[in-house]
C-alpha cells in the first residue's frame, strides 16, 4: 500500500518526459551509473528472490523493502549527483547523474 501511494504521489507531481529503468539482479543494480535529464522518473525493479531497498545516501529518497518483482520509482526534478545503495546489502551501490 505504501509503495502504491508513493508511486501515485510521484506520478501526480510531474508527468515525466523521460524514464529510466534499473533492474536489481543477483545482488546488484544492473545499471550502476546512469545519466538522465532533470524530470526523469527512474524505476527500480527487484528481480531477486530476496528483498532489497533503494536508499539515497543523502536521504533524498528511500524505498520500502522491495520483494521479488516489486518496483520503486523516484522522479529526479533537480540536477545533481545522487548516490544510492541497498540498506540491507550495502555493498550494492548505484549512482544517478541528473543533468539540467
Amino acid at each position: 500500500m505504501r509503495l502504491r501511494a508513493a508511486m501515485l504521489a510521484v506520478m501526480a507531481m510531474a508527468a515525466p518526459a523521460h524514464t529510466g529503468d534499473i533492474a536489481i539482479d543477483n545482488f546488484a543494480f544492473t545499471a550502476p551509473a546512469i545519466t538522465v535529464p532533470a524530470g526523469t522518473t527512474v524505476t527500480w525493479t527487484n528481480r531477486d528472490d530476496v528483498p532489497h531497498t533503494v536508499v539515497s545516501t543523502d536521504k533524498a529518497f528511500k524505498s520500502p523493502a522491495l520483494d521479488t518483482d516489486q518496483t520503486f520509482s523516484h522522479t529526479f526534478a533537480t540536477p545533481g549527483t545522487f548516490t544510492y545503495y541497498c540498506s540491507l546489502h550495502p555493498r550494492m551501490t548505484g549512482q544517478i547523474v541528473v543533468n539540467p
Partner: protein
Amino acid sequence: MANNDEHTTDRRGFLECMAWVGTGAVWTMAGGVLKGTPLEASPHRAAKGHGGLRFVQISDSHIGFDKPANTDVTATLREAIAKIKASPEPPSFVLHTGDLTHLSKPSEFDTLQQLLSELPVPVFYVPGEHDVLADDGKSFLQRYGKGTLGAGWHSFDKDGVHFIGLVNVVDLKAGGLGTLGRDQLEWLEKDVRHLKSSTPIVVFAHIPLWSVYPEWGWGTDDAAQALGYLKRFGSVSVLNGHIHQVMQKVEGHVSFHTAMSTAFPQPAPGMAPSPGPMKVEAERLRSLLGLSRVTFQAVNHPIAITDATLDT
C-alpha cells in the same frame, strides 16, 4: 581449583586440525582453541547424561519466504523445533541468531512466535537485516526488545558463561558490511569490564564477526574493535548466522562458527553469481538445513559445537 590447573593455556597446544565431516563435526574448545573431531569419533557422544550447560542455536528461519529454494519454511522450522524437543538432553535455552522473518511483517513474527512457543525453554534473539526492514526495527523490538538496549543488544550469564547478543544489521553504510556502531561498542566495553578473564564468553550476532567473504557482504566492518575488548578472555566463542551454511575459523583464543539456516541454503563463497537462495533437489534440501547444539560440560571444560542437519 583442580579444574583450573587442568585447563591451563598449555592445553592450547592440543589444536590438531580443522577436521570436516560433511556438515557434522564436533568442535571442542580447550584453553580457548577449537579442536576438530569427526562426529563418529566424538568423545562427547559417550558423555551423554553428564549434565553441564547445553543450548541450541537456530538461525535464519525467514518465515514468509516462499520461493523455489524452499516453499515451506514453516515446515522446516517446525522440524528443527521437533528435533530440539526430541533431544534426550534438552537444552537450557535456545539462541536465534536472526532473520526470524523474511520481510518483517507482523504476521511473519506472529507465526515465528507461535512456532517457537512450543519450546519449553527460553529463546534469546538478535535481529537479522530481514527483521528490521520496516519501522527501523520497531516490530522486532516490540516483541523481543525487553531488557535489551539500542537495536536489541544485551547480555546475560548462565552457569558461569557470559553471553553477549550483538546487533550488526542496522544503520549500514553504503559500500560497507555489517556494523555494530559506536554506542554498542561502548556498551560492550563496559559490559565485559568487570568480568574475570577466565569467564567463558559466547558472543552471538547475525552477520559473521569475521571476514568470511566481504565481496558478498559477509563480514562486519567494526568487528575488530569488539573483539579487541574480548582479547584478554581465555575462551571466546562467536556464533553467527546470515550465510546459511556451516563455517568455522580459529583466531587465537577466539573461535568463530556459523550455523545453518532452517529455511534455505546459500552457495559457498564465490561459487555463484550472488549469495541468493540456492535451489537444490528436493531430496537434498534437508541435508543443508539444520541447527547447532552447543555444550559446556562445565566452566573450564571444553565447549563442543555439533551441527545437526534436519535429515539426521
